[in-house]
């Protein structure tokens, strides 16, 4: 009888085991996992802290007992695998409760050891009240402190999606919270101007945000409880709860020490079938690499979405099938208070680093027909290859629906779509669901206009940086009087679009001219007019004042 051993029992491991059971009904399947909990929704942990998910048990997808009863899968919790012997096909396991060693024979081995939060050693890091968030126990610990009013000032370290979700939920619980990010922006993998939209929203919602700073040490009280964090700029932040969320690392030591090859990303190298260099040993989930769909290289995207899909594929392949995992796009999505943000494919920086000559666009729109109550703004950034017009990536941020357009984009990129392909997709439309010209199609249309030279744009970040650098611009605000009153970019001239042709003499056609309005539509019309009139360089402010993330006057 075929003996299958799975090491690690959360998303990837239990998925692989369940699929293996269906493929090989008569095999013996055992899952050993070092945690107390199996098959839980790690992705739900921040919302458990926030109280949106009330009870621990709601997070558990399936208890070990049910795996036994319904699937005939033996799950041994608090069992840690410590050594793999590939030649003998044996795995040594410690029963953490009874502190005894056990040896398991296998015919097929699935490694799904996942990833662990990375916490650098530093002064005070072991103080009480400094937490990571990976397991249900971690979440319980944080939530208990909040429930018992033991967290009066919180610090979150790291502005990736886990740090941001934790911060949101702490603010939601009424705790004054500071988030420290060591990069110049939060949301890694998003372009700067997109991340700035999110930053402004978070600050508006009451989060204190400190960027370009590292936490370098903690100080505690005489009882060993954390009191302060010290930053590399010398600042001291008071905090009685600190959540360290600067990223995770794949758990690969067990695999490495038995001769399994670790790839360039630091995760376990696998082929398209998710098999390691040792035949009969598969690796899947957060501990394993994947291919990038657009780049000819392995990547490591530790995501639950991938762990589940790949777990199933391993189940098929380990039972003799040959299903490919073609590659990933680094898709992710996050809710931050009233804002939704999603990304897929290459960011501007990633595309440039990969050697692409790119054109990009940033276009605000709505998620539903403007006359249908309840519509909200969504802002789409697209990145395409200038030569082939192939879409390489996109980011969508707004209070409106972003999951639909991002998934359309994922699909389009996966099948090699060009910008022109996007502009003509036969998407579903009725007022409660979308706009007749959906936000994604509108963005693709503007990008097509840019690719064919009909219009030039400048991003708010570029304009701001170049102005800071002392460069000269002729900035023209084309909005109406009441809009202009609200605030504009310092130094902007006010000429409403309706007056542009009669007042064109006030402008110097030789200066670099930037047109702005609220969304970009009026700027586009103005740019056509000025270009026609012989202006040398006319650009529209992409995203308009709506997405201008800096101070206005």
């Amino acid at each position, binding site marked *: 009888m075929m003996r299958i051993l799975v090491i690690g029992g959360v998303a990837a491991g239990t998925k692989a085991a369940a699929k293996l059971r269906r493929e090989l009904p008569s095999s013996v399947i055992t899952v050993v996992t070092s945690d107390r909990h199996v098959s839980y929704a790690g992705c739900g942990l921040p919302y458990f802290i926030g109280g949106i998910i009330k009870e621990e048990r709601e997070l558990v997808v399936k208890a070990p007992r049910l795996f036994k009863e319904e699937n005939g899968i033996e799950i041994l919790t608090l069992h840690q695998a410590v050594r793999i012997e590939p030649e003998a096909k044996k795995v040594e396991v410690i029963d953490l409760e009874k502190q005894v060693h056990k040896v398991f024979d296998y015919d097929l081995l699935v490694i799904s050891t996942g990833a662990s939060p990375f916490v650098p050693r530093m002064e005070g890091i072991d103080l009480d009240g400094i937490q990571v968030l990976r397991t249900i126990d971690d979440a319980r610990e944080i939530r208990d402190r909040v429930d018992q009013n033991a967290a009066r000032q919180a610090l979150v370290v790291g502005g990736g999606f886990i740090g941001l979700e934790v911060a949101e939920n702490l603010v939601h619980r009424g705790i004054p919270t500071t988030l420290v990010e060591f990069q110049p922006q939060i949301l890694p993998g998003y372009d700067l101007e997109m991340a700035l939209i999110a930053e402004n929203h978070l600050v508006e919602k009451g989060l204190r945000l400190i960027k370009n700073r590292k936490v370098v040490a903690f100080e505690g009280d005489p009882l060993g409880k954390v009191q302060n964090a010290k930053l590399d700029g010398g600042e001291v932040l008071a905090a009685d709860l600190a959540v360290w969320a600067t990223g995770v690392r794949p758990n690969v030591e067990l695999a490495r020490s038995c001769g399994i090859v670790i790839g360039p990303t630091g995760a376990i190298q696998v082929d398209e079938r998710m098999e390691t260099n040792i035949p009969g040993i598969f690796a899947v989930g957060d501990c394993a690499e994947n291919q990038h769909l657009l780049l000819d290289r392995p990547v490591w995207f530790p995501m639950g979405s991938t762990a589940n899909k790949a777990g199933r594929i391993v189940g098929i392949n380990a039972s003799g099938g040959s299903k490919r995992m073609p590659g990933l796009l680094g898709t992710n999505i996050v809710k931050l208070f009233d804002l939704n943000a999603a990304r897929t494919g290459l960011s501007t920086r990633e595309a440039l680093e990969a050697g692409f000559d790119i054109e990009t666009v940033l276009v605000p729109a709505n998620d539903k027909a*403007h006359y249908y109550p309840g519509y*909200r703004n969504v802002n789409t950034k697209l990145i395409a290859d200038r030569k082939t017009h192939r879409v390489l990536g996109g980011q969508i941020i707004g209070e409106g629906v972003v999951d639909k357009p991002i998934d359309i984009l994922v699909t389009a990129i996966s099948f090699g779509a060009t910008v022109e392909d996007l502009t003509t997709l036969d998407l579903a439309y009725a007022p409660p669901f979308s706009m007749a010209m959906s936000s994604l199609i509108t963005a693709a249309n503007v990008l097509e206009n840019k690719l064919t030279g009909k219009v030039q744009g400048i991003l708010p970040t570029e304009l701001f940086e170049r102005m800071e650098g002392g460069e000269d611009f002729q900035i023209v605000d084309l909005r*109406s009087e*009441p809009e202009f*009153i*609200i*605030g504009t970019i310092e130094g902007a001239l006010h000429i409403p679009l309706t007056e542009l042709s009669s007042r064109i003499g006030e402008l110097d056609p030789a200066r670099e001219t930037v047109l702005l309005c*609220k969304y970009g539509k009026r700027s586009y019309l103005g740019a056509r007019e000025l270009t026609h009139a012989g202006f040398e360089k006319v650009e529209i402010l992409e995203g308009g004042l*709506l997405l201008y993330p800096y101070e206005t006057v």
Partner: protein
Amino acid sequence: MEIRVNAKGLQCPGPLLQLSNAVKSAQAGDRVLIEVSDFGFKKDIDKWCKKTGNTLISLDEKDSILSAVVEVVRKA
């Protein structure tokens, strides 16, 4: 006096133009009640009132409609 403005279904800058016109035609102490379905208006009205010196008395959200009451302080 209370002036009611229905700016539902109008997109930016429609609601703001309507508000501005209503306030222009009103007297100090009058109230303008405006209903809007464009949520971008939320931030705009706040800033506009601050810049023009009119008072934003209330801003409510119900069934995806924003209702704002502005007291005219001086002619904008």
